[in-house]
């Protein structure tokens, strides 16, 4: 059996580079080794993609949700729960945090589903290519109004957010740069819109219209020329600000919570050396994402960051579903479950604005904490779920008699392994003791399994369990 440190480190890797794993999977992976697991996560092409045809056969609306975001959210949730390519899927979430696009305005969830699919195809490729795909992505064009960005009437929305939120960060460009950047993307638009009624939502495709592109000279970040959009992206990639911005995003998402993004030009990173290492890798690989992820997951700063992040609502929901082996196939409940992250403050495919979400401790307020605790406790305490039955069986197979303390420790081990403060452990033990001595053999009436379920629910309610 795997030793506890190896198991804890593997659980950490799988929480961050994916959405957690069952104990069986963790033990198999420890057997194969940490570095080998990193390779498997990064070279995901060796594993089959999610079977979309199966999903769409049972839930046809999830392929083309139209104006409703709920089926689109459920589609993505299904991918996150069932993927054999967890890092690939986690990177989709990463880019959705950075390139936040919302159905509140797009009102065409088909194209948000398509945008996530684009992240699935290109999110672990080259960042330069990804920005180009993003600039040509119909949902993004409509979200940031580049279809309204004309030669004689520039619209700055995309131009500004490309610099502020997608590549450089506040403080690394001027208002003039925003304007010039916007001009360079004039004529990048989506195909002619057919009226929505009576035919339903139209299908958007990217179109470049030279007659609406401003071909006059532009000066952008100190360089002058007749720039088009692709030139702008190349100039952005030449700046250290861009390398730092993306590296810091990776650190904030995968390693440990940073201050909120708008503070980044004022507050230094908590680990400048780590950011430097990531920047070197990013530049050295000519902006390929796989090498920088390889560097990140094999670094000491990553391995030492166990439980240094507050779990995002998506991580809470998907992690719980994977642990309990719930919704692991088509299921009518999946649509409503797709809304759960939104109740906790992370409405996927519908972020509050293009700035995405405040992360870290900002995920927690008294309202969202109630939702998180209730969601996890309701499921981890449900003895009908196969993953919960596995946990109970493993615990009951070790000893026939155990101390109340041992019961608590076995449950904590199954929920992480999770380390808790003395204060928390004292209360968990008190809860265990209130049921009297633990006897596994008296299980005919379900007393033991019920006590385990209760303990798992209470652990889900702890402070420590809010970290991932």
């Amino acid at each position, binding site marked *: 059996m795997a030793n506890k440190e190896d198991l804890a480190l593997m659980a950490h890797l799988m929480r961050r580079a994916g959405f957690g794993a069952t104990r069986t999977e963790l033990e198999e992976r420890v057997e194969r080794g940490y570095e080998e697991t990193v390779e498997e996560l990064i070279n995901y092409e060796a594993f089959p993609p999610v079977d979309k045809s199966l999903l769409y056969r049972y839930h046809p609306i999830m392929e083309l949700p139209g104006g409703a975001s709920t089926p689109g959210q459920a589609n993505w949730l299904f991918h996150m729960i069932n993927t054999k390519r967890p890092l690939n899927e986690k990177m989709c979430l990463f880019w959705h945090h950075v390139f936040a696009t919302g159905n509140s305005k797009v009102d065409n969830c088909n194209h948000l589903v398509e945008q996530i699919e684009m992240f699935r195809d290109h999110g672990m490729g080259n960042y330069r290519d990804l920005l180009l795909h993003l600039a040509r992505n119909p949902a993004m064009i409509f979200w940031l109004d580049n279809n309204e960005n004309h030669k004689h*009437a520039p619209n700055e929305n995309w131009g500004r957010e490309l610099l502020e939120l997608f590549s450089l960060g506040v403080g690394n460009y001027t208002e003039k740069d925003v304007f010039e950047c916007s001009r360079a993307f004039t004529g990048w638009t989506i195909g002619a819109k057919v009226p929505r009624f009576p035919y339903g939502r139209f299908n958007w495709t990217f179109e470049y219209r030279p007659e609406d592109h401003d071909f006059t000279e532009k000066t952008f970040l100190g360089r002058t020329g007749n720039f088009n959009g692709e030139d702008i992206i190349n100039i952005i990639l030449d700046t250290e600000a861009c390398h730092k911005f993306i590296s810091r995003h990776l650190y904030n998402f995968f390693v440990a919570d940073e201050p909120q993004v*708008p503070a980044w030009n004022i507050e230094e990173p908590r680990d400048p050396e780590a950011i430097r290492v990531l920047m070197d890798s990013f530049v050295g690989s000519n902006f390929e994402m796989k090498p920088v992820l390889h560097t990140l997951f094999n670094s000491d700063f990553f391995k030492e960051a166990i439980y240094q992040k507050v779990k995002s609502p998506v991580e809470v929901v998907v992690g719980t579903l994977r642990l309990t082996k719930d919704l692991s196939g088509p299921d009518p409940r999946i649509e409503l479950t797709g809304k759960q992250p939104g109740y906790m403050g992370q409405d996927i495919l519908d972020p509050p*604005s293009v700035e995405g979400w405040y992360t870290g401790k900002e995920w927690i307020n008294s309202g969202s904490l109630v939702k998180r605790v209730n969601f996890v*406790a309701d499921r981890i305490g449900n003895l009908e779920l196969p993953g919960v039955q596995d946990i109970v069986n493993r615990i009951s197979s070790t000893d026939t008699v155990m101390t109340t303390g041992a019961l608590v420790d076995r449950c904590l081990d199954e929920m992480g392994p999770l380390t808790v403060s003395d204060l928390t452990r004292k209360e968990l033990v008190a809860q265990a003791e209130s049921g009297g001595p633990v006897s596994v053999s008296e299980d005919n009436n379900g007393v033991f399994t019920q006590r385990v379920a209760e303990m798992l629910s209470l652990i889900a*309610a702890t402070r420590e369990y809010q970290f991932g």
Partner: protein
Amino acid sequence: MTTAQKPPVIVVLQLTGGNDYFNTVVPFDDPNYYDSRPTLQISQDKTLKIDDKLGFHPAMGPMKEIYDSGDMAVIHGIGYANSPRSHFRSMDIWHTCEPDTVGTEGWLGRSLRDIDPQGENPVTGVNVGQALPRAMVVPGVSVASVADLSTYGLLTGIEQADQRTKMLERFANMYGPAVGTGQVMDYLGQTGIDALYGADILKMAPERYSSNVEYGSTRIAKALRDISMIHQADLGTRVFYTQYGSFDTHAAQAATHASLWNDVSTAVSDFWDDLKENNADQNVVMFLFSEFGRRVRDNGSGTDHGAAGVAFAIGQNVKGGMYSEYPDTRPEALEQGDLVPNLDYRGVYSTILEDHMGLDPVPIVNGQFEQPKFIGDTN
């Protein structure tokens, strides 16, 4: 300080996304308006006339009635110098009163700390919405954040009542102060305790509520109804917050802006009718703001991020009318194509804090600013 007997209450309604000032209070007498709005102009006969120069957006009928009754202040040209025109940053500036550095304390959070320094009541501040606004956040200050008042509570899945009570006791103990476990853990501890006790208190609100006003089905109507329930239950809540949007109308503004104002003004009007019917309106002031106004010139179908905006204050304790001035609309008077603010938002906060809430505004808004005098006994 309000003359009403009950302690003063403020309700903040944030119009998220940047509300278009130019088409909210339309200067229909101004040729610059028509010149800069070739697509998005609202003709003079459609506006709801305030005087011979200005008129409300046609979808603001119910709020126009409040204005006509003398209970609404229109606060012109509100903003601050050097608007960054970014939603994120602008909203932070409005929430923290820190235009030059990134602030960590919200102005309403500081107000709550002054109102309830020991944090005795976890529902002194209540946000109705999914996520807590930065304006209410100050370390150590508890604010309840309620997405849906009807299903609020912890470990509601534990069916046996005595078992749940026991587990909630453990929960309370686990979230107690832990020594040296770090700032985030401390924050979590406080949040957990507040969630627990807040839920107990808020449970009472729907039970005590009855009203003949039928609200609409929009999100803002539902949020204001929840606020009304909590306010009328007399739980000691002094600061309410909610938001609605998105007012970020870069494109297709004409239809979107009208529908947003229709939702907001109807819900606001129903809210006041409800409070009045139940004799619960005297101690309340409602404040509506947006993070910035929008660009003067339209872009063919919408408007881009701008600077100066308009805010509204409503209540029996509000001296109705117009405050400050409409900014100069001549092209040469604009900055980067935007209306220039002529009234600092922190002065408007100060008026509310000092004249309505009875608090010292200087440490809350970080300084002294010109205070438009829109609060006071009007009877």
